[in-house]
């Protein structure tokens, strides 16, 4: 009997460790607020907008950045379902805006994508996200190292409704870093961010292995 309890205890402890490493993400979005999110999971039923946000309240709008024409493309959930564009798949490493007119919470969960992730980064402005469901320091991401000098990264504040943090990468002659404040900035799991490169910068592939916070 004692051995059975011991095994049960081990199983519970083991399951707890796995759960703590990759928890689901809860994103509360208040009425009138806009949140910049991402879906770092393989969601059951697929990662289309209509599936990921199937429980969203009416009048919730998802804005996805169309890199090819550099505009936001939106689709809204109405009382009769989603408007056009909700079949868009939310890609790995892609950020998007969620606009809500009622207080609601979004629970994101699903399978964990394999590591490493390979995310194409265009030479234009892009809305990106860390492709794993963990917090990470901005300057620990491979993306922060791959971006050329004079690139910028902008982080959205849902509470303030603004781009509260904006950082500029220094020229190589000045160390090529992001500065002390950016180096200390922890990206919460499930956040998106905007990256811009100087005109004429080449596109590249962002290869990112999973880094568990606080690495």
């Amino acid at each position, binding site marked *: 009997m004692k051995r059975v309890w011991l095994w049960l205890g081990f199983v519970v402890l083991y399951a707890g460790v796995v759960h703590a490493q990759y928890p689901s993400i809860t994103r509360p979005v208040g009425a009138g607020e806009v949140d910049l999110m991402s879906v770092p999971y393989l969601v059951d039923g697929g990662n289309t907008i209509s599936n990921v946000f199937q429980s969203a309240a009416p009048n919730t709008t998802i804005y996805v950045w169309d890199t090819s024409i550099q505009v936001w493309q939106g689709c809204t959930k109405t009382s009769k379902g989603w408007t056009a564009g909700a079949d868009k798949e939310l890609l790995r490493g892609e950020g998007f805006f969620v606009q809500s007119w009622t207080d609601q919470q979004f629970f994101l969960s699903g399978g964990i994508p394999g590591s490493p992730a390979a995310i194409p980064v265009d030479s234009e402005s892009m809305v990106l996200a860390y492709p794993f469901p963990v917090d990470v320091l901005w300057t620990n991401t491979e993306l922060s190292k791959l971006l050329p*000098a004079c690139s910028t990264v*902008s982080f959205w504040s849902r509470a303030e409704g*603004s*781009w509260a943090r904006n950082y*500029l990468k220094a020229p190589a002659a000045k160390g090529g870093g992001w*500065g002390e404040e*950016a180096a200390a900035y922890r990206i919460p799991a499930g956040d998106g961010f*905007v990256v811009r490169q100087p005109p004429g910068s080449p596109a590249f592939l962002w290869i990112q292995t999973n880094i568990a916070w606080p690495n």
Partner: protein
Amino acid sequence: MSKLFSILFAVVFCVSPAIAGIAVWYCPGYGLYPYGAANVTSTVPGTGLLANNGSGRTLIQLIYAGFDHVVGDGSDNRVNPANAANGYVTGDDWVMASTVLSRGMQGVDEWGFSSTLRPPHVDLDWNLTGFAYVRVFHDDTPQDGEAYYDTPLVSLDLGFFDPTSFAFAQWIFIDPAPVSGVALNRYIGSGPAPTPQIPSILYLPGDQRLSLGVPGGYRLNRVLGATGLLGNGGWDWQPLAEGADYENQSGTVSIFTAGAGAAPQRVIRIGVLPDP
């Protein structure tokens, strides 16, 4: 007819928000250097503008070039030091935004560079097409005879009418970042200024004065003295008083080195302006 007007109003109402609004970032992407700096890529401490202007601060302005689409009134006198109330501009230009860069504050280094960006200048009601430029002053108290720099004109991008778009704000880098910085290259009151010849300096033991002639084609603007270095590495420049610390007679400047009126400063700077 009234229905036609209604439709027209509706069209205008729908269109105007989409073409209005600006969001502009303006800052150095490499660095700012003092007037005459030959090396505008140097990272050697002491070479930046904010290490050489005495205050460690400089004023930068985002300026609309007006309806004539030229800087100032089109002449070389682009800055009016007496027009502080309107940001020292001339012609039909006006200052859209201004910022004081302070060395050591918000990550600003001696070249005015910081990785931590201030929010872009946002004006949701702006609906004027045209051009803007950025002006960098020698310090944050522009005066006649001081140096400054104007960027080339940049066409303003309209269409920023929503906070979500501000991360995509228009960039106006003051310098050709990330390749190099810029040095101030103009003088208030005189436009582009050639470097005057440095005259010979004579020590007159009888009068215990240092004497030098103002270079031909120039007039004396002011004389400054410094007793030592500030905490930020810049010189502690103070204006010297004519009659007490120096004399200016017929284009010859005499600096007292002894006696009651002797200037205590160890380093002297003499500013000249081209003759009108």
